[in-house]
């Protein structure tokens, strides 16, 4: 019975080892090595600024670019003094170069700042991302620029999931092989960039994004945007979306873990502030002050500096443009000089 069921005549392996199998594996390893070495060399030199940056696979090329530029910045200028994080108001707001200039003018000392603002990032992503960035880059001061809208339900853009990316998880203490590779191997990251570009829907953001970001992470919004007119119906400040509240709590935990945290109220066009003050901004500021003051976390208000920004310094209701950026950045640099003297950053 067994004789009929089984046979040994089908597979004949004579000569099979003469197939160039091992040689192919060797060639594959050699190619990977060459790719990895080239990637490490390019990424660690200024050459890296001339080609699309390596990706960490978080599905947001803005995020990828900022991670890489921050790495480059630390490589070229040493440890990070202040890391600024927030949404588009941060992304287009403070220019680290101008902050550093203002700080130097006031104290004579140099500091090293980086803008990690990401458009459409609400607190649900800001919380985990701030922790991952603090763990990875160890800034001496973490500046979070917030506004009332950061507590609202986040928009379903890729940036919402940036905190759950493999890279972020790796730096939050949940390691995985892809997370490790995204954190450690430029060859892998450039391959991810190539893969990102191969996805047609990413092409536009791929080519546009990285060129608009300065090596300090700042992304200027020039001219005037579409939304210049005020909505007649003022919004209400809400904290009803649990994920953004959890993100805020995660920021407070960071402070408890020893990260020096500074929270700055995002600048708002004065007429917007006045119109929405009662239902939107005032309850937000009260909540922030009630929460942060007992924990010793400074909360800087920006009403005065917002009032000093001329009308043509606003890109739209809540974003400053090239005329507003120098004023806001200089103010931030001067405030830092007052409250965080050079000794703090040493």
């Amino acid at each position: 019975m067994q004789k009929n069921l089984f046979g040994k005549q089908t597979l004949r392996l004579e000569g099979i080892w003469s197939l160039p199998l091992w040689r192919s594996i060797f060639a594959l390893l050699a190619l990977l090595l060459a790719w990895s070495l080239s990637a490490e060399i390019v990424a660690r030199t200024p050459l890296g600024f001339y080609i699309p940056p390596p990706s960490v696979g978080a599905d947001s090329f803005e995020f990828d670019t900022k991670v890489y530029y921050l790495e480059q910045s630390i490589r070229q200028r040493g440890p990070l003094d202040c890391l600024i994080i927030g949404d588009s108001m941060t992304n287009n707001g403070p220019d680290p170069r101008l902050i550093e200039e203002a700080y130097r003018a006031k104290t004579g000392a140099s500091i090293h700042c980086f803008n990690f603002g990401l458009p459409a990032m609400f607190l649900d992503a800001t919380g985990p991302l701030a922790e991952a960035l603090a763990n990875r880059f160890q800034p001496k001061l973490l500046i979070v620029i917030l506004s009332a809208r950061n507590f609202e339900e986040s928009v379903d853009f890729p940036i919402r999931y940036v905190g759950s990316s493999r890279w972020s998880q790796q730096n939050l203490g949940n390691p995985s092989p892809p997370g490790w590779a995204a954190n450690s191997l430029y060859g892998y990251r450039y391959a991810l960039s190539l893969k990102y570009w191969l996805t047609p829907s990413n092409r536009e953001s791929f080519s546009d994004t990285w060129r608009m970001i300065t090596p300090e992470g700042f992304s200027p919004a020039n001219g005037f945007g579409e939304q210049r007119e005020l909505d007649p119906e003022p919004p209400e400040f809400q904290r009803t979306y649990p994920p953004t509240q959890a993100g805020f709590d995660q920021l407070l935990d960071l402070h408890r873990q020893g990260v020096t945290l500074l929270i700055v109220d995002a600048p708002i066009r004065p007429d917007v502030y006045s119109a929405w003050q009662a239902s939107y901004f005032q309850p937000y500021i009260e909540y922030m002050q009630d929460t942060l003051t007992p924990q010793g976390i400074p909360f800087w208000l920006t009403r005065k500096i917002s009032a000093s920004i001329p009308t043509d310094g606003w890109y739209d209701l809540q974003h400053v443009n090239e005329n507003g950026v120098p004023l806001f950045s200089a103010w931030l640099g001067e405030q830092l000089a007052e409250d965080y003297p050079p000794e703090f950053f040493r």
Partner: protein
Amino acid sequence: MNPIEIISLDFLLLTVVTAAVYYILAPRAQIFWLLAASYFFYATWSWIFVGVLLAFTILNFFLAQQIERSKSGQLLSMGILVNAGSLVFLKFLTGPYGGNILERVGTSTLTGILLPIGFSFYVLQLISYLTDVQRGQIEAEKEFARFALYLAYFPKLLAGPIERAKSFLPQLKQDRVVDRGSIEQGLYLILLGLLRKVVIADHLSRLRPENIFTEPENFTSLERAVWLLVFGFILYNDFAGYTSIVRGISSLLGIQLSPNFKQPFLARSFSDFWTRWHITLSEWLRDYIFYPVRRSLMQSQIKGWAALLLPPMVTMLVSGYWHGASLALLLWGFIHGLYLLVEQILQQSKWLPKDGLKANLYGVLVFLLVTLAWIPFNTPSVRASLRYLEGFFPPYTSTLGQLIFPDILLIIFSLWLDWQEQAHRDLSFPRKWTPVRQSWSVAIAILLLVLFSGAGDDLSRFVYEFF
């Protein structure tokens, strides 16, 4: 259970397990094992499909034996009527007109399951099998398992190649050998097929504007022209990639499947094109439509234009209908019939260049006209085809979407693969290279596949599965 696609980890697992067990079984047991694996594979698509396949297998198995015994033309006609009739009827029901009728009677949800996947392919095999038995060209298969495997063999079940019984069944009767040669051939065919499908076809498909063939008026003249050209390469690499993969898998099981493509875009004439494009279908149409029509015309003493016109026209119209019961696809068949007819007239008048520059220019013209015929192949209706065609007349508009130079390189890569196939006269041509060249090429191919796989929407299905 989800349907197992050819390009999926599930299919890889199915193939590995099937092959591993297959290698240790005796030849006769291998048939039953492959049959079980094939039916399992088909059952992941639908149990209804399995039922239909089994019913057609049983019916034709016994019918063929009756035909062999009686040599009856009537029985053959009955067999053809049942098989072809089912195909014609189901194609009609699942086409735009039948779909409308079903919708009107409120059973439109049935359309998805009416035409089993692979049906169009195995029905043609059945028709050729019965015909060959009746003609005495082959013997009717006496062992049911072998016959069932001929139809259900999993590598070719979804979209061919359309195998003839006279080349496939003898391989099931003899002891099969899987040696260094077949493993080498199989692995290279799989690798080349994956390159064609994943790197070329899928990438270009993702770039193609989704509605360019349904709403051509929203696209510029240049976009229409470029995407029409690119579509030919998408379709070719998708289907040639599929065929290469399944032929490679079959080679690893010691069973040779027929090639379906031989560098079609390098064809020097329309008749040459049809010996290079979807070869197993073209040969089937030639042997079971073209020749019989021509023979019957000759027998009935019909001469002149009708004798010249009807065989290619009927053949290509049948081909159009086989692809789908829509006027647009019939128009596609008609256009190709017309091409063949005009070429035949040119040939008879000795106007057709045989070699030199003129022959090359004629080859380019053939390519362009074949490309032009993709319009009705792709558009949902004749009206949409005409709307697409309008873009080729003034006023011309010339912006182009997101196709950029690196994407164009993929078309050059496709042509390079063709050139290599032709130069080495081997569809698994890398085995003709030096070992060093082979090693580096395999390494680069693997890197390309890793990079291109999963970049964007899931396109693991093949275009011809839908026919």
